[in-house]
């Protein structure tokens, strides 16, 4: 036993020494990605390091963060000033709030580097994306705090329609569109009749469905886990606010639209059109993805990305699927800060880090290598020059959209030739919502937000999925929100919005020379 112990201990010692002794002439820069599924990166990193040695003057190491672990790891690395992590993924939609970190000085301002080394990068990215990554820092000034990824840069929520089943029932997609959310009862009833009692035709993500029906958008900076605020768009023209309310942020749950939506959902729920499992946070997503996988639904909700109908997940459902958009694709603050990479202020090699990011986001060879792997190992090219993935891809699947400029990637066989060009054109057409760039700084009302989030977590999902009766529960919910300080929260959000719009208008006036 003693011999065994000493063997193990000395082994551990040797291992840790080996890790420490990896010094080389070139500095090592480390990047932490989100959502990866990578178990073997040796071949890729070898090629990457060969490629960037001269261009960047550094060696790359990657921490392949997974969906579940990234937030914790990133927070830790930033909070502890871990100099081992030079660059990390950041965004504005999950716990890793880009704007908060930038404001608190966790990120390195990149303006100078951008001027010095960023010519290619500027050429490769739309100006709007660089703007979206330019936010307030600890000094109160605006700086570029991240290299923004060029991906699906507009939001478009769609109804995900099982056209095969719809045809069997004797309806068309046009009927679905014409009848609208409030008139689908008859189609659902027919589906229930044909497919039996255990079939649930309406497969929704309740919170998304609410936004789709009421044409409201997410306010960046609002509570992340349960949105509390709404801003209503004009569905016919997403560059305008809804005429009824104007440029104002509303309590999501206190509008007539919300009341009407929950009332209709309750009706659908009671009629058995919605799976009760969707109303439970823990089972909601599993249930939804299972039903989607097997095509056992009639109408669902789907946040859409261009080309999604040709993706393997949709094709493998074994049904014909069509995505019916609610509005034109629109650009809001949240989506414009959807996937970025920032340089940690604890980094000892910010210059090399930026050079690497600039190269990654402007050089197709490097982006393809890091994203799709090594040609001949992880993918091969067919006769048309389209990418066909091999089995080795299973051990090397980074999150494509989390890495940066995906428009540099070659087309894959599944997507078809010309896909990336069409993709770029599609998102270039995305229209800016009136409050693009507005970021709600929730710091002055963070106590209220915490209390309100707790209240909303209790009611919101159940109401939006129709599991409880809005007649009795909605008033209780609104009362609880008021008690938790909704008025103060809302007032702060609107005061900030007014200030933001005034400043934006002043800038516009100055620009137009008025």
């Amino acid at each position, binding site marked *: 036993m003693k011999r065994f112990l000493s063997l193990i201990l000395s082994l551990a010692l040797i*291992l840790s020494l080996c890790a420490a002794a990896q010094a080389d002439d070139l500095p090592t820069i480390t990047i932490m990605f989100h959502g990866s599924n990578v178990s073997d990166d040796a071949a890729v990193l070898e090629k990457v390091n060969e490629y960037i040695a001269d261009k960047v003057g550094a060696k790359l190491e990657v921490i392949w963060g997974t969906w579940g672990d990234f937030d914790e790891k990133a927070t830790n690395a930033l909070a*502890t000033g871990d100099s081992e992590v030079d660059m990390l993924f950041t965004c504005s939609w999950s716990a890793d709030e880009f704007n908060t970190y930038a404001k608190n000085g966790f990120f390195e301002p990149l303006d100078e580097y951008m001027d010095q080394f960023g010519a290619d990068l500027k050429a490769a990215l739309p100006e709007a994306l660089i703007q979206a990554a330019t936010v307030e820092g600890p000094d109160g000034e605006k700086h570029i705090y991240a290299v923004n990824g060029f991906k699906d840069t507009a939001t478009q929520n769609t109804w995900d329609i099982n056209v095969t089943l719809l045809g069997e029932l004797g309806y068309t997609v046009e009927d679905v569109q014409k009848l609208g959310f409030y008139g689908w009862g008859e189609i659902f009833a027919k589906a229930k009749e044909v497919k039996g009692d255990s079939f649930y035709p309406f497969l929704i993500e309740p919170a998304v469905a609410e936004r789709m029906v009421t044409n409201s958008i997410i306010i960046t900076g609002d509570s992340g886990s349960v949105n509390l605020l709404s801003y209503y768009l004009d569905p016919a023209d997403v560059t305008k606010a809804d005429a009824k309310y104007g440029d104002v942020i509303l309590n999501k749950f206190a509008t007539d639209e919300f009341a009407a939506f929950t009332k209709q959902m309750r009706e659908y729920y009671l009629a058995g059109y919605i799976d009760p499992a969707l109303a439970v946070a823990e089972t909601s997503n599993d249930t939804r993805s299972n039903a989607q996988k097997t095509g056992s639904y009639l109408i669902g909700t789907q946040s859409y990305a261009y080309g999604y109908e040709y993706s393997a997940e949709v094709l493998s459902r074994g049904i014909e699927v069509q995505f019916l958009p609610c509005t034109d694709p629109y650009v809001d603050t949240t989506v414009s800060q959807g996937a970025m990479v920032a340089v940690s202020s604890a980094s000892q090699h910010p210059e090399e880090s930026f050079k690497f990011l600039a190269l990654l986001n402007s050089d197709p060879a490097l982006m393809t290598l890091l994203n799709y792997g090594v040609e001949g190992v992880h993918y091969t090219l067919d006769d048309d020059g389209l990418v066909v993935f091999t089995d080795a891809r299973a051990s090397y699947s980074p999150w494509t959209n989390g890495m940066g400029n995906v428009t540099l990637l070659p087309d894959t066989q599944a997507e078809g030739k010309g896909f990336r060009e069409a993709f770029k054109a599609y998102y270039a057409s995305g229209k800016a919502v009136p409050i693009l760039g507005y970021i709600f700084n929730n710091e002055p009302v963070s106590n209220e937000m915490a209390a309100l989030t707790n209240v909303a977590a209790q009611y919101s999902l159940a109401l939006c999925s129709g599991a409880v009766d809005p007649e009795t529960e909605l008033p209780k919910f609104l009362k609880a929100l008021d008690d938790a300080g909704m008025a103060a929260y809302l007032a702060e959000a609107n005061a900030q919005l007014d200030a933001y719009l005034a400043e934006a208008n002043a800038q516009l006036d100055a620009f137009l020379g008025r």
Partner: protein
Amino acid sequence: MSTLAGKKKIRPSTASLNRFGPGAQAGFHLALGLFALLCIIPFVFVVIISFTSEDSIRQIGYSFQPLGWSLQAYRYTFQLGDQLWRSYLNSFLITAVGTALSVLMCFLYAYPLFRKDYGHRSFFNFLSFFTMIFGGGLVPTFVICKSVLGLSDNYAALIVPMLFSPFHVIVMRTFFQTSVPMELIEASRIDGSGEYGTLFRIVFPIVTPGIATIALLVALGYWNEWFLSLLYINKNMDIIPLQYLLMRMQRNADFLAKNSAMLGADAARAAAQLPSQTLKMALVVFIVVPIACAYPFFQRYVVAGLTVGSVKG
């Protein structure tokens, strides 16, 4: 005759002092049986789910009587291949080394605290007890472990942070106090035993039940630990234990569920790559079986530990 009758009278009454009536007996059996069932049913359920076919779960969810059986999950776990077995081995290695070192430290720290003739007792008592009430918090702990101690991407990172537990020291010290009389130590000194001889030849055999109890607690702790891997293992995924492998799957699924509205199509794409429900349950079986097998071996000592204490009292 009268004496006989007297005896007859007395016998049932003394017996009834020590024995419960059949009704009460049945009641106890029933209650304890129910309790045992409550403990065992979830595990049986997990095993059943791990053998359930995916189709059945899709159609009727988890059930004790699935529509179809399947070995798919286990087949898939075996296809995980290297990663699975390496993680399994890591779990055993970390638990074995960690438990041995931790128990040794606990034993050696608690012993002087129990010796009334040790001058700095109260100081060292305070030193360990203080950390029990005032922890350093996550961030300082992380900085110390990673930057100062170099616990990052190595086995040590998964063992060292959990080596010392003030709670275990207190349990151990109390155990010393209740089961080792000072006279014994004095006697052995008179008989010419040195400090180490007294500790390992005289005291150690007496406190084996206590050590076994601590060892069980520590081993469970190490076996179930996954958070350390999350914190300290960034690049070297070859050394992660099985628990973390499972937790990672679970956390991925949770994250996607929470953020699916924000991630949109990406979430659907990622969810398609996630392992199935049955696979998760199969991994739970892999995790539970070894530790369940270890229990009976420790049980003897744990029961002995309980009775040793009560006899003295």
